[in-house]
């Protein structure tokens, strides 16, 4: 038995600690989701199961507007981030090392390392100036900011997929009379597709979930789902928030699960 590999399960207390972590992580979410089905107004006073709060949320124009903004923002940001990340991943894996490749790596992954609040403040300073100068208060600022911090999340699965790809396939395509574009369209892109889709989904969720940067950069009257929820919490705490949070949770879980399934398959 002594020659067995190191097994964390045999450490004293490991199981208890792990269970405790899971309970602390998931019990609040379970309570939240359960409460979203509570007919009553007061938390902890169970008055029966219903979709009352969901119905109310779906009739709430402010919520619907915020949801719409969030979906548009997340779609645009994820799209831009994915295209940029795909090009970056191709450049860093396909070319035989170029000057500044290491720097590009750091710049690409910077948003993961820099504290979000710092990035938010830095962006606020510049964007406030631009807003004042141009008078434009639309969604554009958020789209650009979200695209930027979503790039590393889109980049990771795409790069992983590219690194696992057999380069002889592209050589073979070239040997079989395919030009660069035809090879990319018929060989590289289809093989890369699961990575690109996974990257898009990850970026989408990251954008959908963002509070700090959105809250700093949004113009008056503009709200994404998270900033709307934050505002509602400050004003009136009703079970409608639980219903909205549960919906948000459901979307995130579905997308992350989808992305995980895509990257796991056939590699």
């Amino acid at each position, binding site marked *: 038995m002594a020659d067995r590999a190191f097994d964390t399960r045999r450490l004293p207390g490991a199981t208890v600690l792990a269970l405790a972590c899971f309970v602390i992580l998931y019990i609040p979410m379970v309570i939240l989701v359960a409460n979203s089905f509570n007919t009553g107004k007061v938390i902890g006073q169970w008055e029966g199961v219903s979709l009352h709060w969901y119905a109310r949320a779906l009739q709430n124009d402010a919520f619907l507007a915020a949801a719409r903004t969030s979906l548009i923002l997340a779609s645009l940001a994820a799209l831009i981030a994915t295209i940029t990340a795909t090009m970056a991943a191709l450049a860093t894996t396909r070319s035989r090392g170029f000057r500044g490749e290491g720097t590009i790596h750091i710049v690409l992954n910077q948003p993961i390392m820099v504290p979000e609040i710092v990035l938010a403040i830095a962006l606020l300073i510049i964007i406030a100036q631009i807003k004042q100068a141009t008078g434009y208060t639309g969604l554009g600022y958020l789209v650009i900011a979200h695209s930027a911090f979503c790039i590393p999340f889109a980049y990771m699965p795409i790069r992983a997929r590219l690194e696992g790809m057999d380069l*002889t396939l592209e*050589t073979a395509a070239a040997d079989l009379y*395919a030009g660069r574009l035809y090879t990319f369209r018929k060989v590289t892109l289809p093989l890369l597709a699961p990575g690109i889709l996974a990257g898009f989904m990850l970026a989408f969720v990251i954008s959908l979930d963002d509070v700090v940067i959105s809250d700093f950069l949004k113009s008056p009257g503009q709200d994404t789902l998270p900033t709307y929820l934050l505002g509602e919490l400050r004003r009136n705490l009703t079970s409608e928030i639980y219903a909205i949070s549960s919906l948000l949770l459901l979307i995130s879980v579905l997308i992350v699960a989808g992305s995980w399934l895509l990257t796991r398959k056939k590699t």
Partner: protein
Amino acid sequence: MLDLHRLTKSFGKGDSAVTALHEVSFSIAEGEFFTLLGPSGCGKTTLLRLIAGFEPPSGGALVLDGRDIAHVPPNQRPVNTVFQNYALFPHMTVAENVGFALGAQGRPRAEIAATVERMLALVKLSHLAGRKSAALSGGQQQRVALARALAARPRILLLDEPLSALDMKLRKEMQVELKRLQQETGLTFIFVTHDQEEALTMSDRIAVMAGGRIQQIASPRDLYDQPANRFVAGFIGETNFLPAHCTAGRLTLPQAAAPLPVPHADGPVTVMIRPEHVALGQARPDALVLTAQVDRLVYFGTDTHVHLHLSDGSPLVARVQNALRGGQPCAAGQTIPVSLPGEALRLLPCDEAA
């Protein structure tokens, strides 16, 4: 049809540069099954990559049908490759793989479909046309790779050790199959291998390579019977090498019974003789007769290998056909005469390393 003129390839720059090919020159004729044979690192795969266009040469010319294609990109050369790992597109079906080259050339759909059908029939895989290529066995993938490379009717088909990933039995079958395909299509094949048996059984001509240079180009029979140097003699088949000396047109081995007349310049030489030509006993009048001691006998079914050594210690192997009756030709420890027929002796320059 294909002419190589002083084709050279170096990797790296300055002092760290490594030359993989040294001024290689030869010509390949239309419809020939031409093999590049050599140990790993001899430059045969590099040469193939230059012909396919995956690498540009550092110097020299590569002339196909009168046109220098040394710097033409691979997708504009009428040359297709069967890769060592097959490199089938995993996201496409067998039919899509085979039709890829024609699709890239922008041929009409009906023509692609007809060609794919014909190619799959040629490699006997018509029943698997709709299967994904990842779901095939090694031998089937091999056939798809062949059909794919043949579909656009290249001027030359390049094969990069295509049989090395197959097991022994399948490899033998594919050797026959490849030769049949080459004869049926009438195409020129350039085949790369490190397996001398593969090279001998399939090729019209073989180029033996070592250290980035061509050692000899000849038909399988000439390569075996008339090797140009010690490397070729040792690489193809089994061989005995004996140190000898030429003096005044006569050949003398250290303990030769009778010097033989040989047209060769005076000086030390290496004598080569295949084990199957070494005869036990005082067989023939024109033979060089030596005395040797038997070390051991190894039974091989069709024949027995007799390992001997001469009085100066040089090892010598004789291959003796096994008769239906008669038992062993000799016994270990015996000292016996062995005959080396004059016509079977080959003289090689002795300064070369093996």
